[in-house]
């Protein structure tokens, strides 16, 4: 066709216009649903019967929300972007820290200090500029959850607190969005596809929600974060990659009927039977236990709970209760009780503690030692103690201390006996990583009568080794 416009210019214009299901690129009179670049880019998955052209078009038209751009969200975002998901939303309020980099693969050394969402958008744009990224530089709260989640088709929960897990699940039930939920800690991971199919609350054909599987949150004191418990990069990476896989499967399996529900009289008996079969197929919980054999276990989950607070006919979680703030997720999940209040005489600042050590290192003062070296008990776990510790400190892990029952009869634990042999005029100084376990230890030592009825001082080094590094010794390692 001679319209006076050079072919290469026309191609560029058409390439810029290719968007949406109905629009096609026109070249040489033929119309193709994907651009030449897209055929080449996605060729290796397009030729698979599980994807095909129809699957690729669904991916292109799909929008996925990733809540949390950390160890799970990074690999999930990378694979979803690579596969050609049209729109990816990213929610995170945090900035990249150097301790993230061993597992959060979208961020790099040069991005430390940058917001995680900005870093992720840069990575995704570099990987695949066909993908539209929507950054949400904020934490997810009851006040913003419905507004953000409503803009997307599928949600990935890549967050790190029980409160956000319940909030995201409840929001997905209310907005009828399938939820791919994963988590990881230390050497283990969990993966579930929830609220799939995303039928309205009370519809038994819908998939169970997070509350159906875990109706009661774990006690706040037992919740361990990756910062406290540790995490192996490939473990959380595996879970994030599997999350992206499940999201692709959910998108590709979406039928157009799901989007536009038919009138009741249009559904014939055969379709009703299919619905019945859907009900009989509850989802799985995939357990990854990387240091056990076998590494993977698949648990057959239950269907929706008849008394579920979110997805049953008697649900108490509603759009109104969420928006009004009457649902307090932080309170529901409990707040870790503030550490036992100690008397001022039971605490010492790191500066005074450093002075105490310095005094004891002065050999003589008018012919006598100024002070005996203080007895310093470091209550971190042994593996942390082995990383770095104060000179002369003794390691008794808090897990050992807390599992020693003060009311138990019979012979006391060896470590208790050894501490009793220390002269009474010697105070025991307790230090830990952040200054919480040390306070609990002071309290527990009193319960174990290690203060010998008040004749021995037991002192918490306030703020722990973090304060020591911040205020006394800048060279003490931070980890």
């Amino acid at each position, binding site marked *: 066709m001679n319209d006076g416009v050079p072919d290469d210019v026309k191609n560029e214009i058409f390439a810029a216009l290719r968007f949406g299901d109905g629009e096609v690129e026109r070249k040489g009179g033929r119309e193709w649903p994907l651009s030449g670049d897209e055929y080449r880019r996605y060729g290796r998955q397009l030729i698979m019967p599980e994807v095909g052209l129809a699957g690729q078009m669904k991916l292109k038209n799909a929008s996925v929300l990733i809540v949390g751009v950390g160890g799970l969200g990074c690999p999930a975002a990378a694979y979803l972007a690579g596969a050609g998901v049209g729109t990816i939303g990213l929610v995170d309020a945090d900035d990249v820290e150097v301790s993230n980099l061993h597992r959060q693969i979208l961020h790099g050394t040069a991005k430390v200090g940058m917001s995680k969402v900005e870093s992720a958008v840069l990575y995704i744009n570099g990987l695949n500029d066909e993908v539209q990224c929507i950054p949400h530089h904020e934490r997810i709260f009851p006040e913003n959850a419905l507004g953000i989640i409503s803009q997307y088709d599928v949600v990935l929960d890549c967050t790190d607190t029980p409160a956000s897990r319940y909030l995201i699940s409840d929001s997905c039930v209310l907005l009828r969005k399938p939820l791919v939920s994963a988590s990881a800690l230390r050497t283990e991971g969990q993966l579930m596809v929830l609220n799939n199919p995303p039928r309205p609350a009370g519809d038994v054909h819908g998939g169970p929600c997070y509350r159906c599987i875990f109706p009661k949150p774990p006690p706040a004191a037992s919740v*361990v974060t990756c910062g406290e418990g540790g995490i192996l990069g490939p473990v959380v990476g595996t879970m994030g990659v599997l999350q992206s896989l499940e999201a692709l499967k959910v998108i590709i399996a979406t039928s157009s009927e799901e989007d536009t529900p038919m009138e009741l009289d249009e559904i014939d008996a055969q379709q009703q039977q299919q619905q019945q079969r859907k009900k009989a197929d509850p989802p799985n919980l995939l357990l990854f236990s990387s240091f056990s054999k076998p590494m993977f276990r698949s648990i057959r989950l239950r269907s929706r709970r008849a008394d579920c607070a979110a997805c049953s006919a008697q649900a108490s979680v509603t759009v109104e209760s969420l928006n009004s703030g009457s649902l307090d997720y932080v309170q529901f999940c409990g707040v870790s009780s503030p550490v036992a209040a100690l008397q001022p005489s039971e605490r010492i600042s790191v500066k005074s503690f450093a002075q105490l050590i310095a005094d004891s290192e002065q050999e003589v003062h008018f012919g006598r030692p100024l002070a005996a070296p203080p007895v310093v008990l470091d209550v971190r776990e042994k593996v942390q103690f082995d990383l770095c510790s104060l000179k002369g400190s003794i390691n008794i892990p808090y897990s050992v201390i807390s599992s020693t029952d003060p009311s138990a009869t019979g012979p006391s634990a060896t470590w208790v006996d050894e501490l009793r042999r220390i002269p009474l005029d010697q105070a025991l100084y307790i230090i830990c990583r952040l200054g919480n376990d040390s306070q609990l230890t002071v309290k527990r030592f009193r319960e174990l009568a290690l203060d010998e009825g008040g004749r021995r001082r037991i002192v918490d080094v306030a703020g722990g080794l973090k304060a020591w590094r911040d205020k006394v010794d800048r060279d003490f390692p931070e980890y």
Partner: protein
Amino acid sequence: MSISSSDTPSTYFTILYFAAASDITKKRSETLTAPVHVSQLFTLLDKKYPGLKDKVLCSSAITVNLEYVDVDESMSDEEGLVIKAGDEVAIIPPVSSG
């Protein structure tokens, strides 16, 4: 460590401890005497590991032979589920970090 049920003696069931459950029990798995009614499991484990019920079991998913079981529902069900010799039980606390 092998935790396959084929090693289990004929009067025992295997119990697997994940996440916080393995922190408290200091074990990934062990064998216990069968049979046990599911509704008795928490009491039995709490006796063996004081505090385990409140700290872990009440908020965990419990499975028998890779199938989720509802402990509350089986409490009210006298027929209920009985853990038999050779069964594999798992204690799966929710993990929220990522």
